[in-house]
């Protein structure tokens, strides 16, 4: 079997065509594949649809990673599917929002749990499901609802993607991934929804057989490409490597 290990993020994203639908893991900067994102900005693919929790990283974090605002600035983004299309406070700014408000980038606003579940459904061969979320809101206007056991639910469709960019803490050569702490978030879910998963990995990629099969978070079946993140300053490493006491 061909090695899944790529020498650089640039190499791992080189063939991504214009028009791709790409999911980006991460919840704010934690678990976000910042190095792959930056490589994609440099690669230049256009007309992209980006699927992610928020087009902006949290301002609370000291070393915020680049967010998909950098893709908007380069004119690479057609549409964003996410749970936030505006900052949560008036005092905050968000690069993406400027493009969205001017109509230069489209957006589909999806409740966070619905976003996770639509991605999971895509990975699980479930084309559609019903959820109580967003019933009675602006998001449900004109859409199909249905009652089960006397409660109203909204029909939601699976959200498959072409690529998922994920960030993992550890990996083995087969592509099995482990995440640390809340870095996990959307990463395993997006991995199941994608035809091609590209993982940036924080630690050395282990030989096969060195990861406990009982403790794999994303199995290597889902992962086609992996890149060990280079240390700063070459690599974008918003999250320092774990400390000795971890």
């Amino acid at each position, binding site marked *: 079997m061909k090695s899944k290990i790529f020498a650089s993020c640039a190499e791992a994203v080189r063939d991504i065509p214009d028009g791709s639908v790409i999911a980006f893991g991460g*919840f*704010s900067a*934690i*678990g976000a594949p910042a190095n792959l994102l930056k490589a994609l900005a440099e690669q230049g693919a256009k007309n992209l649809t980006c699927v992610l*929790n*928020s087009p902006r990283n*949290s*301002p*609370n*974090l000291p070393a915020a990673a680049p967010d998909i605002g950098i893709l908007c600035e380069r004119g690479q983004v057609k549409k964003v599917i996410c*749970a*936030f*299309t*505006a*900052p*949560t406070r*008036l005092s905050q700014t968000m690069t993406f*929002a400027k493009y*969205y*408000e001017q109509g230069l980038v489209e*957006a589909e*606003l*999806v*409740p*966070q*749990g*619905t976003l*996770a*579940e639509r*991605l*999971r459904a895509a990975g699980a061969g479930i084309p559609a499901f019903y*959820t*109580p*979320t*967003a*019933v*009675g*809101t*602006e*998001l449900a206007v004109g859409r199909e609802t249905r009652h089960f056991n006397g409660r109203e639910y909204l029909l939601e469709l699976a959200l498959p993607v072409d690529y998922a960019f994920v960030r993992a*803490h550890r990996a083995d050569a087969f592509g099995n991934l482990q*995440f*640390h*702490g*809340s*870095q*996990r*978030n*959307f*990463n*395993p*879910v997006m991995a199941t929804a994608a035809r091609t998963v590209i993982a940036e990995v924080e630690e050395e990629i282990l030989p096969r057989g060195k990861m406990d099969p009982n403790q794999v*978070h994303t199995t290597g079946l889902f992962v086609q490409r992996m890149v060990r993140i280079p240390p700063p300053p070459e690599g974008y490493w918003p*999250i*320092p490597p*774990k400390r000795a006491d*971890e």
Partner: protein
Amino acid sequence: MSDAKGLSRQQMCDRLAMEFQDGWVVNLGLGIPTLCSNCAFGDREIIFHSENGVIGYGPLAKPGDEDLHLTNAGGQYVTLQPGAAIVHHADSFAMIRGGRIDVTVLGAYEVAENGDFANWKMAGQKGGGIGGAMDLAVGAKNVFLAMEQLTRDGKPRLVERCAIPVTARGVVKLVITNLGLFQITKDGFLLREIAPGVALDQIKAQTGGKLTVANPLPTVRLT
């Protein structure tokens, strides 16, 4: 007579947190509600759940002591309590929609007398920030709100009907503001407790929608 300011934000959260029962799983929204994690729970054990899959987080991490892979949904570096566990986002929201959250405390722009509330999109905005609020609002067993009585422009946030897009319909049970503790009933807002130093007339003037008042009307319990 100038208006009283009433409770501090921490006091508002302290009062709400008295409603949490031993063993409850609690999810706190951004803003004022995060202060609920600072409250003293005595011998009640509270399990804090965060949308990003952290179950059982504890106090904020001390500066220099952060695990840089670990934040709550507000992006704050937190610690883990013994017995904590991490899950991925789909599993985290499965817990939310599946009814495993005993209470979510959320901030809001507006709450209506019928229990509708709005917290994701301000008037005139093109975009909005839903985050996990819509899932929490329909999934949690109890929805509590923590909010100021008035907007920055001095308009009531407790209203007859929400003027901006709602987050969910008819789900709010309890609202704490700086002026008092309100319960949503079929007769609208029931003022259950009044903040110390606040006159009932002020609350009547600063509440839209139907208001009833508990009789007797105690002051807000603070310990």
